[in-house]
């Protein structure tokens, strides 16, 4: 794999089929997190898998399409706003994966911090604009309320709120993605290899 073409994307059938599967995985992750009453979202597992397999562009598409589809069809229109967040999570995880940062467990943790940073930077302004700074997560909002009570500026309280929620969420998400990617058979992952070359016999 050469480092020059980390943005190169295949738009063949295999990649197009990957997108809805990843969106479904996001949904299932969120469903399991809710079923087990976990205080995390875990709704970007699919986006990260899409990013690791298909690259940054597919990751971004998975993320944005995920929020747009759920926002427009399941009535959860609040998620529409966060399409931007998902897009950047997918995009940056894709870049990290293409640079080889999903190859070992330690590197996967590093990728998760990049994903969390992307999520925090994009979400915080959105939270401030649309929600007055809150995230809707119990733990995060408790921190937000405490920070506001200590009369810290709004952006700082909101940032703290996001960090408390997003960092653990993304670390667990990418650990899961790492485990899942290791478990996938080669005949599947080779479909998405961007460095492949077809040998022609004619």
């Amino acid at each position, binding site marked *: 794999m050469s480092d020059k073409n980390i943005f190169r994307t295949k738009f063949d059938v295999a990649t197009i*089929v990957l997108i809805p599967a990843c969106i479904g*995985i996001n*949904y299932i992750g969120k469903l*399991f997190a809710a079923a087990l009453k976990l205080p995390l979202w875990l709704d970007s*597992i699919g986006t990260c898998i899409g990013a690791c397999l298909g690259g940054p562009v597919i990751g971004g598409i998975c993320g944005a399409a995920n929020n747009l589809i759920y926002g427009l069809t399941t009535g959860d*229109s609040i998620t529409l706003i966060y399409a931007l967040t998902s897009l950047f999570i997918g995009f940056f995880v894709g870049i990290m994966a293409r640079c080889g940062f999903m190859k070992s467990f330690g590197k996967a943790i590093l990728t998760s911090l990049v994903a969390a940073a992307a999520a925090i930077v994009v979400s915080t302004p959105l939270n401030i604009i649309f929600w007055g700074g809150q995230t809707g997560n119990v733990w995060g909002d408790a921190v937000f*309320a405490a920070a506001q009570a200590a009369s810290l500026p*709004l952006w700082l309280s909101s940032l703290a709120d996001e960090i408390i929620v997003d960092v653990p969420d993304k670390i667990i998400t990418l650990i899961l993605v790492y485990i899942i990617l290791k478990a996938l058979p080669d005949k599947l992952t080779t479909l998405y290899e961007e460095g492949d070359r077809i040998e022609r016999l004619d």
Partner: protein
Amino acid sequence: MKSISLYRDNGTWLCRVHPFTKLMYIASAILVPLLIGSLWAYAVFIALDVIILLSGKSLKRARGLVIFSLTIILTIFIIRGLFDEDNITPLFSIGPAVFYVEGLMKALHTGCVIINMLLSFSILVLTSKPEDIADEMERHGFSPRFSYVISSVFSIIPQMMSTMSTITDAQKSRGMETEGSLSKRMKAFIPLITPVVTSSLINTRERAIALEVRGFSSAKKRTFLNPWKKHRGDAAMTIIMLITVIATAIWRLATWLL
């Protein structure tokens, strides 16, 4: 299998209105109050949302969507009312907690934005079929790959949900605990999600082959199985809403400039 879409065809006029008209309504319901910027504009649009939903016999189902967000709106009221940085005028107090007018007004504004958005989106969500939206987008020049992604999500998720319940049962029968302390529930997450995700990813390979065999990558123009039945007044409604949005934008610009 249960669909995740909230669409039900209840035979009212609202179900026959073109999805793009509803999208235009959403755009104007969000933009017009935003441009005017005062609470009465939100009140007008929330009332309009309710009237439309009521005449489309979907208000009851929309209520469920709004109730879901009431808890977060309540916390916004509490946090803003108590701690907002602009708080000066006390309104009332419950024990040691003093609520201020400025914070509560801000919270009211945020609450109105959220409720207006939820209601206007629910008009589209409750009365338009996702597959129809995808079809209409394809007909208006979007890539067929795009509409495949949308309609495929709706067939994949019920399938994954049934795999999910199978795997939950299988793991439970092997003695996995899904209740108890947080660390216990955390540990249960991995053996539950990994098999579902892996199997659905492995399935994509076969799906890709099946699609390829059926000419998915063909560049030929597609034909449609279900033609869209035109509803009278779609064009008129869209134009009226477009004019309203442009008029408010001009008014806003005028008040800024003059």
